[in-house]
Structure formats: structure tokens, C-alpha cells
């Protein structure tokens, strides 16, 4: 049997959870050695055609239609789906837009800021449309393991990931849980 296949994606987030994963530093080498990292922002695979995975990992909430499709595709292909960070777990800071109509946000950003000089607001078919609200991952697909934090500490990420790779879902020890 080969190494467990893992994929990671970031959706409506800031990359901070992936950076916290990289903050495992030297310990990262052993983890990368123990898994087969397939699709991930730090590898070169194109498209989101996930292979059969042991673990799928999501950073970020779900804020547009493309992100929703990716979340659904990933859920179908993985045995265990992990939500990393407050955005995936709770929706996170990007949900601050949920109280404002999306048309108003778009029109402010593209037409009303002091440096705006005109042009047409984004509408091309190449661009995914926004959802009305930014959602936590478990409002879109079933989630098996949660690692909260903004971002979760490298230790919390390693703890949860090692448990999942060993076939267990463990809650994060209190000492590794933090609000900020």
C-alpha cells in the first residue's frame, strides 16, 4: 500500500492556515515524507480532479460558486474531510460581508473608491459569481474534523493531521485551542 493521499485547497481564506502548516518547519519534512501530497497550492497539479484521497483539507470558507464546486468535489473523493482555521470552521472574517447586499459591495469596490477611474465592473464568464453569503464549510458539505484558530497553531494542525492519518478523529487539546 502506498502512502496516504492528501489534497489541500484554500477557498475563501488568506493562506494563513497553509502558512501555519509550513510553520511546522523541520517537522514538515517528516510529514511530507509520510504522505502523498497531491493537489495543493504548493504543488503543480492543475484542475481540481482529485484522486481517491485518504484526507481532504480545506482552508477558508465558501464564498463563490467555484469554491462551492471544489468543496463538493473534494468531499466526494476523500474519506476524511478536515476544516482548517476559523474561516472553514465558522465562516471567519469574510462573513463580515454577509450583512451587506453583494451588489452594494461590488459597486463600492469597483466604482466608489477614491482611486476609481471607471471601466466595467467584473462580469465576465471567466469569473465565478459570489454567493449571497460566505459560509462555513459544514453548511456546504459534511465535515469530519475541525481545527479552529486564526490560524490554528502548527502544533494543533500536526496533532489533528497525525491522528487522522492514524485513523482517529481527535478533538484538539485545550492547550492548543486559542481564540486568535
Amino acid at each position: 500500500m502506498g502512502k496516504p493521499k492528501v489534497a489541500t485547497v484554500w477557498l475563501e481564506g488568506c493562506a494563513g492556515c497553509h502558512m501555519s502548516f509550513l510553520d511546522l518547519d523541520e517537522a514538515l519534512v517528516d510529514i511530507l515524507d509520510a504522505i502523498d501530497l497531491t493537489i495543493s497550492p504548493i504543488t503543480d497539479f492543475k484542475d481540481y480532479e482529485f484522486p481517491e484521497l485518504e484526507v481532504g483539507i480545506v482552508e477558508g470558507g465558501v464564498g463563490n460558486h467555484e469554491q462551492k464546486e471544489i468543496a463538493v468535489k473534494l468531499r466526494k473523493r476523500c474519506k476524511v474531510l478536515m476544516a482548517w482555521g476559523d474561516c472553514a470552521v465558522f465562516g471567519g472574517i469574510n462573513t463580515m460581508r454577509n450583512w451587506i447586499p453583494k451588489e452594494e459591495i461590488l459597486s463600492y469596490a469597483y466604482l466608489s473608491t477614491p482611486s476609481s477611474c471607471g471601466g466595467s465592473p467584473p462580469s465576465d464568464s471567466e469569473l465565478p459569481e459570489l454567493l449571497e453569503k460566505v459560509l462555513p464549510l459544514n453548511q456546504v458539505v459534511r465535515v469530519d474534523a475541525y481545527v479552529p484558530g486564526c490560524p490554528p497553531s502548527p502544533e494543533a494542525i500536526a496533532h489533528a493531521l497525525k491522528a487522522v492519518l492514524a485513523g482517529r478523529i481527535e478533538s484538539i487539546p485545550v492547550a492548543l485551542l486559542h481564540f486568535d
Partner: protein
Amino acid sequence: MAISRKITIEPITRIEGHGKVTIHLDEEGNVAQARFHVTQFRGYERFCHGRPLEEMPVITQRICGICPVSHHLASAKACDAIMGVEIPRTASLLRELLHMGQYIQSHALHFFHLASPDLLLGWDSDPPTRNIVGVVRQFPQVALMGIRLRKFGQEIIQALGGKKIHPAFAVPGGVSERLSIQNRDRLLKGFHEATEAWATAMGFLKKWWHENLTEANSFASFSSGYAGLVDEMGNLALYDGKIKFCGPKGEALGECHGEAYLDFIGEMVEPWSYLKFPFLKALGYPGGIYRVGPLARLNVCQGVSTPKAQEELEELRSSAPRWPAEGSLLYHWCRLVELIYALERAKELLEDEEICSKETRITYSKPAKEEGVGVVEAPRGTLIHHYRVDEHGVIKDVNLIVATGHNNLAMNEAVKAVAKAYIHRGQITEGILNRIEGAIRCYDPCLSCSTHAVGQMPLIVTVYDSGGEKIGEITRSIE
């Protein structure tokens, strides 16, 4: 076969965020149009309305997990301006030190984790191993050095802000904590190993450069304006200074403090990208294309204030085919010159006798002004935060222009230049696609930052005929 085709590269990988490239070929199979799309939008400029000013440095750093410190500092500076305060010298030193920590981690991340696979393993190497994992397997010592160098930068940030990502440190009026003598002494021990890691990276880069000279000099080379911060001497400035604008030949187009940025920069919107298109007002749109970031900063500055970095800058200037330098791959070299500057400068700051002083913050009563602008050089380029508030300091307007935004026209130009240079008569290989991505990767775009408005980067090559029917697809996928 006389059909036109469209190629899509999606998602673009080993950059921070989400984007895609589409290339339209004409009937002869040559490039008719090439575009870099940013496909995500989040809405920070609007959803921060109504928040108290003091929250802004903590909220806006969540725009980006790679350069949170840049947003944190630009935001704090905009708040200082609104409150009308001059922060204590120690606070300024500590903010700059935090910023140098970020330069060390971010430039190390970009070189070792994201760009080195192309340089060490090759543009045309096997996609499944062309990543940091492949580098770890083939060059474990190099990978470990990169990891440790990045770690050193993150440790500086943690020593000041309590954590490595999204630290809570800068506040309007200064910083929240002093630096302890123990932490200062501990950090000072890290420079020897960090400098060795830098020297290894620079050695690899120069060797690669000389072995691939033709491509290195011509790759995505084009004319543009440049912008970056400089100090009173005209030297490279990363935390504070005036924004200097230069034309394609290095001719000065003007300088301004942050609050006058609107005299120089406007933003256009195109329907096909969530990322706006800043341009130089004096030259119009899209003629006012300009670049920011390592190449631009070293193009606009007179010199660098630290000795080793100045020596490296002189070598770079004498090696480049022209100066101002135009080739996009030179960004990698410039980034490493800045990396040694950040290391030297961090050490200078830690050795300053006031670095551990207790005077780290001054208080204020109410806003002195209705608006304020904070500007820093983020690792990827000039970052502008502009806020307006009411009489209680509650946010009314927010305008953010991030590094990747300034480079938007330039990245589109780079994609076009590479596509035209490598795609002829419809012949496309995976290595060509990777070069197109590589052109974007030179700019180290932070799509997390650029999508503060909304957005992400996606890579698939879809081929369309002239009638818009999909007739084929080239993708990189796994078995």
C-alpha cells in the same frame, strides 16, 4: 487547420492565491490575446465600514496570511495619520523589525518553497515532483536551509507579536509590547545561520542565471514604469519613505508622500478580472503600466544602505543587460538582494540601543483628521491603505491598493510576452504552460492580497475553435 483556439491555464500554482490565464490563438495558431484573470473577491473595502479605527490593523491583516505584517503596518500608519500622532522612535524601530522579519520569511518562502522547483528541478521537469516536496527529496540540505531561514523570519515576528501569523503588535500610536532583552539576545544569535542560507540561495540563483543567460535576460522582458519607496537619501526604503515613480528609462516622474498617492495613481476596472488595474495617471490607461516589488524598488532607488546588500546590488546592476532592468526573471535576483538587506537591517535594528526601551506608545484622545493614508513596501511591492472616519473614529471609507494590483497590467504584459515568444502555430507543451505560469510567478503575486476586494487564481488549457466550441483540453492532472 484554420481555426482559432482558446487556452486556459487554471489554477496557476505555486503562487499565493487563485488565478487563471486564458490565451486566444488566431487562425494560424499564434497568440491573439493573453489574459491573467484573478477570480476571487472578498470585499474588505466595504465590509470594514462602521468598525472602530483601532480594529483595522487586526482586521485587515486577515487579507493575507503570507504578508499579514504589511497590512498590519500600513493600517497602523493610516491610523497614526488620522490620530495625528508621531510614534516614539522605539515603536518605529520595532515596527520596522517586525517588517524585516516578514521580508525574511516571505522572500525565503518565495525562493525556496515556490520558485526554486523551476530553477533547481527545471521548467520542463516532471510536474508531480516539481514542487517543494520534490526539492526536499532531491536537495534535502537546500530545502532544510530554506525552511530554517523562513523560520528565523517567523521567529522575529513571534518574538514581537506573540504569534507568527496575524500577530497583534502595532496599534495606532505605536506598538503594544516592548522587546525584552532576552528576546533581543536570542534573536541576535540567529543571523549567522540565516546569512549562510541566504548565501546558498544566492549561489544557486547566480549559477542558474549564468547557465541560462539567454532565457534569463529575455524572459518576459518589457518596458514599463516603476514605483517604490525611497528614504531621504534616495535609498531603498521598506517601512517608511516617499513613493518614487520612474519611467521606462529610469527618468523620474515624481515623488510623493502617501497622502498624495491619488495625484499619481488611478485604478481602472476590466470586466474579466476581479483585480483592478492601477495605472499612472500622467501616462493614462493602459499606457501608464508600471511595476512594483523587488525589481521596481531596486530600479528606482539610488542604492541600499547596508554594506553587503549594496555590494550585491552593484554586481546585479553590472550583470543585467540594461538598467533599469526589464526582465521579469530578474525579480528573483532582486528578491535575494533584498533578503540580505532585510537580514542586515534587522541586525542593525536589534543592535540599536533604544530597541528595548519602554517608550513604545503614545495615546491620543480623538481623531485629528478625517482621513489618513499608510504606505509600506510589502514584500511584493507598494501597499497603500487609505481610510476616512467620522468624528468618533468610525470607518466611513476604505481604499486598498496592494502590490499585486499595481503589477496587474505588468503581469498581463508578461503573460502576453511569454505566450508570444513560445507559442507558434498552435504548438503547446506542458513546459510552455509552466513558463507562462513562471512569468506570473516572477511577480510572486499574492492573490490573497489582491482579492481583498473579491478573488482567487485557477490552470487547464481549453482549446476552442473560432465558433467558441470546445475542441480539446490540455491539463496537468494526476493518475
